[in-house]
């Protein structure tokens, strides 16, 4: 909560948080917000412009673009968040085990991570989707399979710092169990780290899933998804370029808000950055994060 308060002081971060939160809420309660059913075709309204009942106009089948945009939040953002959460939990759990117990478990886990991370992310996602077949569920599965190793690696490093701390040793001496130590003393310290890397992966994953849907590898046809909407708009791109605008701007708004929030979060949580200001930027961290982002996109 203290963190949230500090984040809200930064106006841009507060705005980004508002955008992300609003998007998530609207997506969650899509039926309440959408003015029309997203798949309701209305052939006489094909390519109709904006009107009072259809704020953003209609697409090539006369469906309400605004409603499709709202329902599209679910696969484009909510499901991505779910996959991210799954990957983060799985990776963090393994990272905890590796970083806390060290030894052979650690060595084996890290070799597995090495192998996983030596596959370029985008290629591997394509490979998994290629073998399992196109579809949203398979892409999400590919995300979890690809991302956990990365989480495990980062969390392990974070946990290792704390596992040697005096207060952990003290807790051990007092007879506290491993699980209790992890829960009480290590998890709270490592959580911010998880938040930072998860939020930095979020934006690139949104871009990636919409890209795959755009290629026709994602969600199936009648369902609304932002990449899919652009895929449908692509066939009439030269005559009706405006159909590309709404989903494209939606993606830009959400992804830039997420990226901004992630930057702000990192600045808040990294005391070194806060003290020495912008001059000594966290070079390595920022660089790798940038790379990761782009590797995915």
């Amino acid at each position, binding site marked *: 909560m203290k963190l949230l308060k500090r984040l809200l002081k930064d106006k841009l971060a507060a705005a980004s948080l508002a955008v992300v939160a609003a998007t998530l809420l609207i997506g969650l309660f899509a039926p309440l917000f959408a003015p029309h059913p997203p798949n309701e075709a209305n052939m006489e309204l094909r390519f109709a412009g904006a009107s009072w009942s259809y704020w953003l106009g209609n697409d090539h089948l006369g469906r309400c673009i605004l409603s499709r945009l709202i329902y599209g939040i679910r696969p484009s953002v909510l499901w991505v968040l779910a996959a991210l959460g799954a990957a983060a939990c799985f990776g963090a759990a393994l990272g905890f085990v590796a970083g806390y117990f060290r030894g052979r478990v650690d060595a084996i886990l890290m070799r597995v991570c*090495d*192998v996983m991370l*030596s*596959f*370029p992310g*985008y*290629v*591997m996602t*394509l*490979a*998994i*989707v*290629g*073998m*399992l*077949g*196109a579809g949203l569920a398979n892409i999400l599965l590919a995300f979890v399979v690809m991302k956990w190793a990365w989480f495990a690696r980062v969390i392990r490093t974070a946990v290792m710092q704390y596992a040697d701390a005096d207060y952990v040793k003290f807790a051990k001496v007092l007879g506290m169990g491993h699980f209790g130590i992890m829960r009480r003393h290590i998890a709270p310290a490592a959580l911010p780290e998880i938040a930072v890397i998860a939020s930095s992966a979020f*934006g690139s994953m949104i*871009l990636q899933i*919409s*890209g795959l849907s*755009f*290629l*026709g*590898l994602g969600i199936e046809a009648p369902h609304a998804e932002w*990449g899919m909407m*652009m895929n449908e708009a*692509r066939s009439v*791109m*030269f005559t009706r*370029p405006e159909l*590309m605008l709404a989903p*494209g701007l939606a*993606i*830009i708004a959400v*992804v*830039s808000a997420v*990226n*901004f929030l992630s930057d702000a979060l990192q600045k808040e949580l990294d005391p070194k950055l806060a003290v020495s200001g912008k*001059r*000594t*930027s966290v*070079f390595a961290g*920022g*660089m790798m994060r*940038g*790379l990761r*982002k*782009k*590797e995915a*996109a």
Partner: protein
Amino acid sequence: MGLYVLKRVGVLAPLLVVISFLTFTLNGLSPMDPAEVVLHAQGVPSITEELIAATRTELGMDRPLLARYWDWLLASLQLDFGDSYITGKPVWSLLGPALMNTLKLTIVSSLFIIALSIVLGVLCALREGRWLDLSVRGVSFLLTSMPAYWLAALMVWYFAVKLDLLPTSGMDSASSYVLPVAVIVIGYAGIYFRVVRSSMLSNLNEDYVLYGRACGIPERRLTMHVLRNSLQVAVSVFGLAIPIILGSTVVVENIFAWPGLGTLTVTSILGRDFPIIQAYVLVLAVAFVLFNTGSDVLNAAMNPRLRKEL
């Protein structure tokens, strides 16, 4: 240095074996029997159990996994990845030319990305906090949040349709490169310029710069010193960038109908042409690992401190 290279290469060999094995077992992920896929692709009207069994034998699927892997590995080393399920042509005859086309696109884009990020990174670092720095960073932030295909579609619509300056797709002439390269460069320069910029900034704060300034070394010569030290870090980043770009041209290639790897792969995925997908993953994963090692070695050659790790 020799020891370092030896160690890196020593790690490389088992890693490549594991990667190739994982790529090989990818096939097993498929919910459909490869034999069935082949029969579907050949347009066999009625697929019976016997027919599937016969095709399995024909494809050698009934042999033990490790035996099949060994044969596949030996063949792959000679660029023989089997035949496409759909067209029946050897995979390499499809993949090879596509790889060349993608490489052309990647190399041209990488050159522009490197040049642009160095120029922008240096300029922004020297004018930190001024409007040039702020505006370049702001714009690049927005551009990295933009889906590449969206930008591509906008550019096609504006430059190719509205102004009719450039071709919309294909790779017939030099002008076909302009739009795809522009889209890739815009996407990546925003990331890599930040790397150069922050590297420059951290170097500008070093004591040797202060000392140089105190000694009255001209600012321009000082900048050259800082630039040299900053680029050292950038080299490893750019080394990694090339395979990343190679793997992520998929979307751009599809929009511009570039006859490269991305287009080939998406077609293969939609047609369940497993041998092509497998070969694609193998080629890119190996390229990724090799570039990774190469850039590490290059870095160690330039910065002896790094050799102690590992």
